[in-house]
């Protein structure tokens, strides 16, 4: 059984961007989620937070814009938009942990049927663990969106009955955006919202997780 060609990373990012309400305060995790910024509608008024201490972060800095004192959570040079503000780490994380961010978008190794998230550690014995702000975002944001491919390179599903990788947070994921389908994790179970190059029935056959139709 094979799935048809799914979405590109850019297409996944566009789907996430579509679901972010105008005027939202949003944190985009390092890696793939940063692509979402490119797909926010001009004038949407979405305000980006970076956990190292800034609101209303602008696009990546280039050329003369590069300033070593102004970086994002991935330590890459960024810019400042009008209406920006700077604050220290305890204030930045108070913002995240106090439930003030409307949405955070994170990558993942695995998501469970009940919304558990594993995205910080593969558990490999020689790996150097690093967690950063992932646990704070997963636990604190009003809505947690995850972007990932639905299957690992070896074909195993990453939406699983129970995460086998070390957890980042328990029952924290609200929506899951993958290359072949988007899902909503609800108290009643996992709902398939849309499929891309595959069908609900194909997904039911490939995943070990009960799936509800929208």
């Amino acid at each position, binding site marked *: 059984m094979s799935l048809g060609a799914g979405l590109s990373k850019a297409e996944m990012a566009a789907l996430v961007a579509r679901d972010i*309400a105008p*005027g*939202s*305060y949003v944190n985009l995790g390092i890696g793939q989620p940063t692509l979402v910024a490119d797909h926010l509608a001009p004038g949407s*008024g979405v*305000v980006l*937070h970076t956990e190292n201490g800034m*609101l*209303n972060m602008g696009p990546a800095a280039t050329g003369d814009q590069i300033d070593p004192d102004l970086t994002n959570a991935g330590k890459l040079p960024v810019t*400042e938009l*009008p*209406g*920006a*503000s*700077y*604050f220290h780490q*305890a204030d930045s*994380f*108070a*913002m*995240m*942990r*106090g*439930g*003030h*961010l*409307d949405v955070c978008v994170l990558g993942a190794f695995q998501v469970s049927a009940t919304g558990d998230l594993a995205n910080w550690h593969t558990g490999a014995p020689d790996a150097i663990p690093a967690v950063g702000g992932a646990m704070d975002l997963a636990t*604190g944001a009003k809505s947690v969106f995850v972007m990932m491919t639905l299957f690992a390179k070896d074909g195993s599903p990453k939406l699983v009955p129970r995460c086998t990788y070390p957890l980042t947070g328990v029952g924290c994921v609200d929506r899951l955006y993958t290359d072949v389908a988007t899902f909503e994790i609800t108290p009643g179970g996992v709902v398939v919202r849309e499929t891309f190059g595959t069908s609900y029935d194909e997904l039911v056959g490939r995943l070990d997780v009960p799936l509800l139709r929208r």
Partner: protein
Amino acid sequence: MTATICATAAEAVAGIEDGAVVLVSGFGMAGMPVELIEALIDQGATDLTVVSNNAGNGDTGLAALLATGRVRKVVCSFPRQHDSWVFDGLYRAGRIELELVPQGNLAERLRAAGAGIGAFFTPTGAGTPLAEGKETRELGGRTHVLELPIRGDVALVAAHRADRMGNLVYRKTARNFGPVMAAAAGTTIVQVRELVDTGDLDPEAVVTPGIYVDRVVVA
């Protein structure tokens, strides 16, 4: 969601419900949101709990709200002032409930609500009547008391200037409880003396980022 700029104080306080917990900024009159309080008096919500450092001065502002009889309970650190006759009368008549909180615990419990801290241990108040009945624990050789967050349904805050995204700056010691209350409420309503264009506040000097602000009115 980014802040809404309101045309009037009445519009800014619309929808405050009976029974609401209302955080009110200010230390005495410095930083007190007098116009928002007057709008709340007109708006008519009742059975309120008010959290503020003091319990009103003279006959205006918070004192005027208390005088309407629509405040069930005051949570504060220092109700007794030379000109706090409205509160004093209600309290002596048994018509208002008082929860007295050391000022640092008041500030820290408000901060905890805004910062997602579920509870914290502090030495302040240990061994005093204000810690009676509270859980205690020895930490680092000192008795600590467990304190819980104070969350507001609404915060009424006076700041100096806002931009159109709701970023705020305060002025001198009128800053006091504004920043912690703005972060600790479901809906934060701010009165400012001046509204400036987005980009006109120094990003290094913003005290309350707009993420904490829901409504702004110039008053």
